């Protein structure tokens, strides 16, 4: 093409002049390069499974032969959609469970947000006692599998509907607890809220720690009351973190399975996730994938609403080049009462479930809580064929110790890679805010969150069974476990990455750029340190979740890569209650220890100023 052919003032697309200009433009917009790279990578590891699920939802499965014996397996069909949305079974399969799940999601999110942000405010902005200890302990409930809380609830409140030994309350008072307290909606909402408030707590305390107290003082100077200051100054600044917390909590509740199954079944309270699980369990992929797609659509619209509310406003920036001060409010005469409330809260959510696990692991006959029934055999026994099929106690068990190493390795590697990826995604999304690329990236990074774990694992078998270009066949290796864990948990770090980046003003980076400092140095010297507190929180969530994950990786794991949750699954399946409690307790304690160490280290490394605890 010659220059003359081009319209005046604008060079043609492939002209040297334009190419040079475009290269220059892209070089100065690293977020576009990063965004494109992230999008390409995520498209492969997230979109391919998504397309597979969509394809399977429209494909006649062998399971469907029972309904349509003449059907051809593998052919295109609308049968699943007709069944889930249109046939009479839709009410039981889709409508009622969806309503239950939404009711559950709204209630849990509301309670979790209130509890989580109140606690965050207490820990970051007040002079409540024992902040160091409390701050760390408040995350502990999330480190336990959520069914521990549900089991604790049952042992306290169960009534004669499910028979067997009495619940503690009935045992002590003789009163039969009504069904609605013991099972179904109310206990599910309560126990889940006591588990998932941790998202809000972590995200809000991270964000709150970076809000400059001077802003609030300025409000006070202008004569604003305390509540008005919170409402028009603090709250808006916390919006990105709050939005992330709402999204993470709400969508996780829609997908959560263990607690609704345990507490809902006795009164036939079915949720969306229990229906998906039941369909997958029957290998009825048609139903399972259509229902999963509904969840994905729900989640995406939820994120869309959230990003509409947060919008493209630039007003969330709390980190600028200007002065910063953090001031703790004095609780006055409420200092001790507030402390006691936190202590009681921790007793209920941390101490009691842990004690229950410990006690269960020390009983000779499970469920018998008398003192004469206590034994340390399941911890330190050498293996006695009369007991538990001769399985040796936890500390002598080679299998358990090996699995422990694998779990920790998986948790660490997943957290590390996830942190890096989350930061890049956050950077590309926030700096490119408003552009299509950013919106796509944000959506895709979140999609794995609602994928049914087991389906993702199953699809990865096919995707990584052979080598792809330079990447060797990953199936059967440890790498694929790390990869799938990173992908599944990416929403944590991409949300926290986005929230953290929203708070960092572009001027900080621009200053460095004016001085000719390259992108990598800007990243490591400015962006990473400033977003560290949010990012550490996201990585910690990844670490915890990765350590507790099983259904995601079970199809990909080989015996040499066995993880602790796999060991627990085996014990549960074989009804070895004490072993499973002992290993669960061990898992929880290890997660707790490691996350406390990480917090101490990150504080020591200068992240402390920004770190909530």
């Amino acid at each position, binding site marked *: 093409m010659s220059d003359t052919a081009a319209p005046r003032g604008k060079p043609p697309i492939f002209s040297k002049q334009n190419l040079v200009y475009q290269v220059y433009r892209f070089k100065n917009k690293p977020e576009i390069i990063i965004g494109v790279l992230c999008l390409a990578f995520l498209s492969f590891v997230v979109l391919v499974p998504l397309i597979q699920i969509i394809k399977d939802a429209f494909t006649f499965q062998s399971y469907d032969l029972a309904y349509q014996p003449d059907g051809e397996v593998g052919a295109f069909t609308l049968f699943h959609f007709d069944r889930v949305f249109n046939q*009479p079974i839709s009410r039981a399969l889709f409508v009622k469970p969806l309503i239950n799940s939404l009711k559950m999601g709204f209630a849990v999110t509301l309670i979790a947000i209130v509890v989580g942000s109140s606690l965050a405010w207490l820990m970051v902005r007040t002079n409540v006692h024992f902040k160091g200890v409390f701050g760390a302990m408040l995350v502990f409930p999330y480190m336990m599998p959520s069914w521990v809380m549900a089991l604790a609830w049952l042992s306290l409140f169960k009534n004669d509907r*499910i028979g067997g030994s009495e619940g503690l309350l009935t045992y002590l008072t003789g009163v039969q607890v009504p069904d609605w307290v013991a099972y179904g909606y109310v206990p599910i909402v309560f126990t889940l809220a006591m588990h998932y408030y941790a998202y809000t707590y972590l995200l809000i305390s991270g964000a709150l720690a970076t809000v400059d107290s001077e802003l609030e003082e300025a409000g006070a100077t202008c004569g604003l009351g305390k509540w008005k200051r919170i409402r028009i100054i603090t709250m808006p600044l916390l919006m990105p973190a709050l939005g992330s917390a709402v999204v993470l909590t709400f969508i996780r509740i829609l997908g959560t399975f263990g607690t609704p199954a345990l507490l809902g079944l006795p009164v036939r309270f079915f949720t969306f996730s229990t229906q998906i699980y039941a369909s997958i369990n029957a*290998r009825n992929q048609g139903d399972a994938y259509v229902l999963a797609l509904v969840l994905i659509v729900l989640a995406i619209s939820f994120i869309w609403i959230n990003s509409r509310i947060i919008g493209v406003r630039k007003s969330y920036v709390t980190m600028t080049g200007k002065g910063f001060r953090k001031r703790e409010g004095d609780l006055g005469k409420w200092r001790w009462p507030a402390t006691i409330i936190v202590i009681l809260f921790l007793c209920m959510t941390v101490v009691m479930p842990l004690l229950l696990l410990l006690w269960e692991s020390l009983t000779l006959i499970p469920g018998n809580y008398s003192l004469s029934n206590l034994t340390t055999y399941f911890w330190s026994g050498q293996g006695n*064929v009369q007991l538990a099929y001769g399985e040796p106690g936890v500390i002598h068990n080679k299998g358990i110790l090996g699995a422990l190493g694998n779990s920790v390795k998986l948790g660490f590697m997943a957290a590390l890679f996830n942190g890096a990826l989350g930061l890049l995604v956050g950077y590309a999304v926030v700096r490119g805010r408003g552009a299509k690329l950013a919106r796509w990236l944000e959506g895709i990074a979140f999609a794995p969150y609602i994928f049914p774990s087991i389906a993702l694992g199953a699809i990865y*078998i096919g995707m990584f*069974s052979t080598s792809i270009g330079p990447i060797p066949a990953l*199936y059967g290796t440890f790498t694929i476990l790390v990869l799938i864990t990173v992908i599944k948990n990416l929403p944590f770090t991409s949300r926290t990455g986005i929230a953290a980046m929203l708070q960092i003003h572009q001027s900080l980076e621009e200053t460095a750029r004016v001085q000719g400092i390259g992108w990598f140095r800007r990243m490591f010297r400015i962006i990473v340190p400033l977003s560290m507190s949010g990012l550490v929180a996201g990585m910690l969530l990844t670490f915890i979740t990765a350590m507790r994950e099983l259904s995601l990786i*079970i199809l990909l794991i080989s015996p040499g890569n066995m993880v602790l949750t796999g060991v627990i699954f085996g014990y549960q399946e074989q009804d070895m209650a004490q072993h499973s409690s002992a290993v669960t307790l061990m898992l929880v304690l290890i997660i707790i220890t490691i996350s406390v160490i990480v917090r101490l280290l990150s504080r020591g490394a200068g992240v402390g100023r920004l770190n909530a605890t």
Partner: protein
Amino acid sequence: MTMTRSTFLKAIAGSVAAGLFSVAASAVSAQEVSPELQAWLEENALGTNAMVEEDWDDIVARATEEGEVVVYSSSGRIAKLADHFQALYPGITLTLFDLGSVKTIEKTVREQDAGIFNVDVITTGNSGQVIYELLNNGRIFNYVPAHYADRIPEENRDPLLIRVNEAIVFFYNTEANPDGAPISNVWELTQEQFRGRVGIKDPMASGSSLMGLATLVQYPEEMAAAYERLTGEALVLGEGVPDAGFEFVRRLLANDVVIFKSGSKLADAAGAAGQDDAMIAMTNMTYISRNDSKGNVNAIMADLDPVSRMVYPTFMSIGANAPHPNAAKVFIAYLLGNTDLNIDTVLEKPYLEGESFDLLQGLAPYHDAGSVSPRSDVPLPAGGEIWDQMEGWNISAEFMWQQGPKLRDFWLIHSSQ
């Protein structure tokens, strides 16, 4: 077009007959295998090439050369066998994937679709899918060691070798019912006096529980007759319910049956001592052993009209293109137990030690009340002798494949009322 529930349920019933024809069709298509697979089958004398006589020493020698056997299992207890097996067959390492029944099938199918042939021995339940999806599609192959063939009744080795038979039964609390079983007919469970006092393991989540329920549904005429024997009246079906089997399920749910997530918790709920209004549990017979391990006071109802035990199988087979086919054969023989074992053998507990282990071999971890070897020459486990006194029905794979999904739909609709 929208359907009412009754026409939907009638459609379910109507397709039963249609389903029967399709089975024959899918069995035919199953014979088509790729040339490579055909060569592998011939080389290893599997599938239609199975031999009546085998050179067992040669198989063991080749197995030792192969050096490993990879097992996908629905049960983790097989892990207990590793040391014993490896001591008996030095040079063959047992690599066990403990996956649960659904994931065992899922992993096998997904791997084979991706061209990965990793597994040698597959052992899992879920009759319908194992026979119709795996066996009939050439994903697994039946193998019965020739020297065991006449020790195993045909129904336990054809079309697929059974590793262990287990049963769903009804438990009652002997303290709360000192005079014996509180019912004599299963239909009593649907009557007012047992409202909310019957527990069942969630059939939507548990394959064995679904198979137990399906076994009752499989015999509608017998169920209808039993109803008449109890009440003296003919059974009246609910609106849109196809037959007496489904009607039993509907009435059970309408009578507020309590759904449990775990079969062992259900056994404990029925059997905990000190209850005066204990529930009746429909659960796996094997949990009767919790009378010893947990102090339960359960007993099994052995004389119910029309049936007392609903038997479901766990199969074992060799995966298509298995990398260690001879080691797979040796391990399957090991899982069947020592040939020195016979019906008069007296086995001493613990079974996982000494001579008992040497005789039982792969049966040892499963030699519990409620589990029965496929062999006709193995004594019943101590505490499980009642098995032979009970009227029993077996679940058919064909029924599970064709009716299982409809029974699930039926359960879902009637449990969500």
